[in-house]
């Protein structure tokens, strides 16, 4: 079975349905990029996969021995975090919390894991720096390191490059790709479609519901894909 399987899932807030009837499976080791306009239900879908929102209808199933505490998540930054007094190490280490079980404090293994994650993302030197004083790109790396502490199997990223300059974005994409090459399945919401398609092997196009899902090659040939690549033609999902 797939790592994560959505069966006819509908998600929403109060009176609003943001994503309807989504069926999808995420396989181990794949790189899926989720595209769509603002308000098309991308972030909502990610929240549904993570269990932050309970489905109104349908089911989210976990397979291949994936447990709730083996999913990594890189959320969009909140305003509060930009002003939070915490060192890089404190933030990264907090990603190991889901492995502590009932233990109140971090053990040696959690610390090693945090060290490794910082090394892996090239932020070891920033260990004792204050999170809020880092550049946007560095902050995103810290959050990615924290997500990496929490998982070996599946990483969900919600617009990881929002607000970054092209250089920092590219570096982050390279890091994400190399994590994927090491076997971590990636599900990434992105507006930066060119760069995302370069690395991904599958594309999901959201428009309240799934309007396209398939490989990158299929996507490029599809109406959705052609639209975003600049050829507006009839029958595209975005014209609906």
């Amino acid at each position, binding site marked *: 079975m797939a790592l994560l399987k959505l069966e006819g899932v509908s998600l929403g807030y*109060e009176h609003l349905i943001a994503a309807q009837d989504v069926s999808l499976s995420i396989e181990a080791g794949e790189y899926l990029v989720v595209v769509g306009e603002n308000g098309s239900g991308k972030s909502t879908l990610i929240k549904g996969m*993570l*269990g*932050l929102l309970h489905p109104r209808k349908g089911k989210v199933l976990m397979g291949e021995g994936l*447990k*709730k*505490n*083996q*999913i*990594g*998540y890189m*959320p969009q930054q*909140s305003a*509060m*975090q930009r002003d*939070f*007094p*915490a*060192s890089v190490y*404190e*933030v990264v*280490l*907090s*990603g190991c*919390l*889901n492995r*502590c079980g009932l233990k*109140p*404090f*971090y053990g040696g293994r959690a610390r090693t894991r945090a060290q490794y994650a910082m090394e892996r993302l090239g932020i070891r030197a920033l260990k*004792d720096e*204050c999170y*809020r*004083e880092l550049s946007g790109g560095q902050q995103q790396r810290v959050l990615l390191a*924290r*997500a990496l502490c*929490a*998982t070996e199997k599946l990483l*969900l990223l919600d617009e990881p490059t929002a607000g970054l300059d092209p250089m920092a974005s590219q570096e982050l994409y390279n890091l994400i790709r190399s994590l994927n090459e090491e076997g971590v399945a990636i599900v990434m919401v992105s507006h930066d479609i060119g760069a995302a398609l370069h690395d991904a092997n599958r594309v999901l196009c959201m428009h309240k519901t799934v309007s396209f899902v398939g490989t990158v090659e299929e996507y490029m040939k599809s109406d959705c894909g052609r639209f975003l690549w600049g050829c507006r033609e009839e029958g595209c999902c975005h014209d609906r």
Partner: protein
Amino acid sequence: MIAEMLSYGFMCRALVVGTLVSLCAALLGVSLVLKRYAMIGDGLSHVGFGALSVALAMNLSPLKVSVPVVVLAAFGLLRLSESQRIKGDSAIALISTSSMAIGVIVTSLSGGMNVDVYGYMFGSILSMNMEDVYLSVGLSAVVLFLFFLFYHRIFAVTFDENFARATGIRADRYNILLALLTAVTVVLGMRMMGTLLISSLIIFPALSAMRVFKRFLWVVLCAALISVLCFFAGMTVSFSLSIPTGASVVIANLTCYLLMSLVGTITLGRG
């Protein structure tokens, strides 16, 4: 003068309870301020005022009645602000003014403002009896122990609740824990600071510490230290000038905040 202060039994009791409560308030305060829940302390203290006016009118022990009532109110506030139908700050105002109103009505029906009610409005740490002291010491010890035990989880939930929840941490439980500990601390602190001033004990040390320190752990430790020092300073000034304790502690905290801001501006070059 310190020796003279300590020669009074009521001063010793006040110092012991005050130190513990200041410590609790400062530790929880860091998390509450960062979570934008700072006014929760204020709201809960008003609920506490309502509860103890009723307790006094019915001749019950004020602390024993208000602790459970305020704990319930804390849960209620959390639920209300999560439901998103009413925003957090409005929810607090709603509950706090309602309970204040109940308190005022009960008080006036049962014989008007007496010394006890006045004491709870503005603090009366010196009038604590031994039973209050035991209860306060016991409860603050529990608050400190639980905070220590769940420190890392409280950090995770404060920094990023969604991440914590997404990766399998039961964030709701820790929010409830935080609300519970805050409720207990507020009720204990009301005796010392009074309904109207207790939130300063939660907010000031955290803000002062954040002016200078950049690591969560240091902020927490510094806030705890500041809180205890300011309490002693306030207590000493209050004793020597015969002015109310609660107000003196607030002014000590304000002075400390200004000092720390200055230090922060000079050393870190930020305003």
